[in-house]
């Protein structure tokens, strides 16, 4: 069976969930071979094996952490040279897309980004994408070279398929460009204790109607009662009420959770682009004419300062 390279997104060996989704999708196309660059391959190995990686190609060097993007491209290119893969799958993070972009140019391959589904086709993998602010669904394939495809978080649910795995050392020689951009310092994001926005099953977002940073704890309390991530509209972020890392929309994160709750968000195109593919959408807004109500499965026309706390209480009561 053909081998499919999966780029492992991890923090010191702790594998992030989108990689498990990629391994699950890769099994539709062939045998997943995980590429682990940087420290922690031994920590990651059992997790990668549980999700079906038949082989792990691992390389560790200070360059991976000290310089931007290019060393990882060198690593992934070395892996592609080692196994002649049928496809290369990379998580659709900002960094993942840049790694994939440069790899595609080097391999002389076509690239597809932000796939929301992936199936095996007669002429290679077929990627489904959601485009033009999710108003269209397209199916595309790479017509030249080894298909390089980046896949969005939540494209599929990770399914375990345990196999025995062998960790092989990958020889990586760094090119001249590898040390071009130095990472002078790195400040880890403070953990909020909540799920990651793009990976969360439930997202609760606040917008202009929240009317101030001091009111966002209302949104956070509802999110915590549901075990959800917190998002914000561009209006709320631009007003400085919530960090940009939580922005949902065209210029922020695109989310596709099982449940999306929009509180005080009118539903401008900029926001819809980032959440329209959510499975179930619920909105609370005092303006009955707000465009968000065109998208909802359930909507409450009312004051979020009344409805949100009442909902939080009721969720807590029902969960006991």
């Amino acid at each position: 069976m053909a081998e499919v390279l999966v780029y492992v997104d991890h923090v010191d060996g702790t594998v992030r969930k989108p990689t498990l989704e990629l391994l699950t999708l890769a099994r539709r196309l062939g045998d997943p071979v995980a590429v682990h660059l940087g420290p922690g391959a031994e920590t990651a190995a059992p997790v990668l094996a549980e999700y079906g990686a038949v082989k792990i190609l691992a390389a560790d060097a200070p360059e991976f952490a000290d310089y931007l993007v290019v060393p990882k491209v060198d690593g992934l290119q070395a892996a592609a040279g080692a196994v002649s893969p049928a496809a290369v799958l990379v998580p659709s993070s900002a960094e993942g897309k840049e790694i994939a972009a440069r790899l595609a140019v080097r391999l002389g391959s076509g690239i597809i980004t932000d796939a929301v589904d992936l199936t095996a086709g007669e002429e290679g993998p077929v990627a489904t994408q959601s485009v033009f602010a999710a108003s269209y669904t397209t199916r595309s394939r790479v017509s030249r070279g080894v298909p390089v495809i980046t896949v969005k978080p939540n494209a599929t649910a990770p399914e375990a398929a345990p196999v025995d795995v062998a960790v092989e050392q990958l020889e990586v020689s760094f090119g001249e460009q590898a040390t071009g951009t130095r990472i002078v310092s790195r400040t880890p994001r403070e953990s909020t204790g909540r799920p990651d926005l793009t990976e969360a099953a439930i997202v609760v977002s606040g917008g202009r109607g929240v009317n101030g940073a001091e009111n966002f704890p209302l949104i956070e309390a509802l999110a915590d009662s549901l075990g959800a991530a917190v998002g914000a509209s561009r209006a709320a972020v631009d007003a400085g009420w919530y960090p940009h890392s939580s922005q949902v929309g065209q210029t922020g994160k695109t989310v596709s959770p099982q449940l999306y709750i929009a509180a005080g968000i009118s539903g401008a195109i900029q926001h819809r682009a980032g959440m329209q593919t959510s499975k179930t959408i619920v909105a609370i807004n005092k303006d009955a004419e707000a465009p968000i109500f065109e998208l909802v499965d359930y909507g409450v026309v009312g004051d979020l300062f009344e409805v949100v706390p009442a909902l939080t209480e009721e969720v807590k009561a029902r969960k006991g």
Partner: protein
Amino acid sequence: MSLRIVVCVKYVPDATGDRQFADDLTTDRDAVDGLLSELDEYAVEQALQIAENADDAEVTVVTVGPEDANDALRKALSMGADKAVHVEDDDLHGTDAVGTSLVLAKAVEHVGYDLVVCGMASTDGVMGVLPAMLAERLGVPQVTLLSELSVADGTVSGRRDGDTASEQLQAALPAVISVTDQSGEARYPSFKGIMAAKKKPVESLDLDDLGIDAEEVGLEGAWTAVEDATKRPPRTAGEIVTDEGEGGKQLAAFLAGQKFI
């Protein structure tokens, strides 16, 4: 010596319009009015600020696109860019990101550069891969997705906010950078700027001028193929209630019914 700044911009269909695909599954450029991609306005703004802080600098704005893409160049010129380059050729229709990066790399080399500034992504394709491809092709450092940046003494530095960490980056010029929508509001063109833009030079180039074979670009030369595009069915209207004191409870009942609680 003058700091040569080149800004790459894209002319895109207005994201607030009803964007569609043409029969050949390329972006329909007639269905909706086009404009300078909003995310590229941030790139123009940062380029202008870098130029203003330099002793001597020249800002050239480059686009690859059909005749109407001239509008995007005019907008950038009216914001304050000094001159423009428009790569236009019928054979470019349907070019994918890999092909576009080839054309832009040749165009940027044609202009001559110390710093190439890009937006974080276009508002139509939204791939966000072009700056990295451009750096790969030009063989210079990529310093991308910056929300804060400075250029001094032949070095570009800036802050990149990632998913798990915020990083401080540094590279020597020449380099390719991209800036996010957090890098600073873009200025509005002044009346004076709009009038001045009319007199600024726009150089027109085709594939021959750049030494690119038509077979390397266009729909036929694309390394990806769209097989089909389906309009997403409108979401069917759900149940909407007006809160009369029970809205929170009603919503909780809906969520429980859907097994979310």
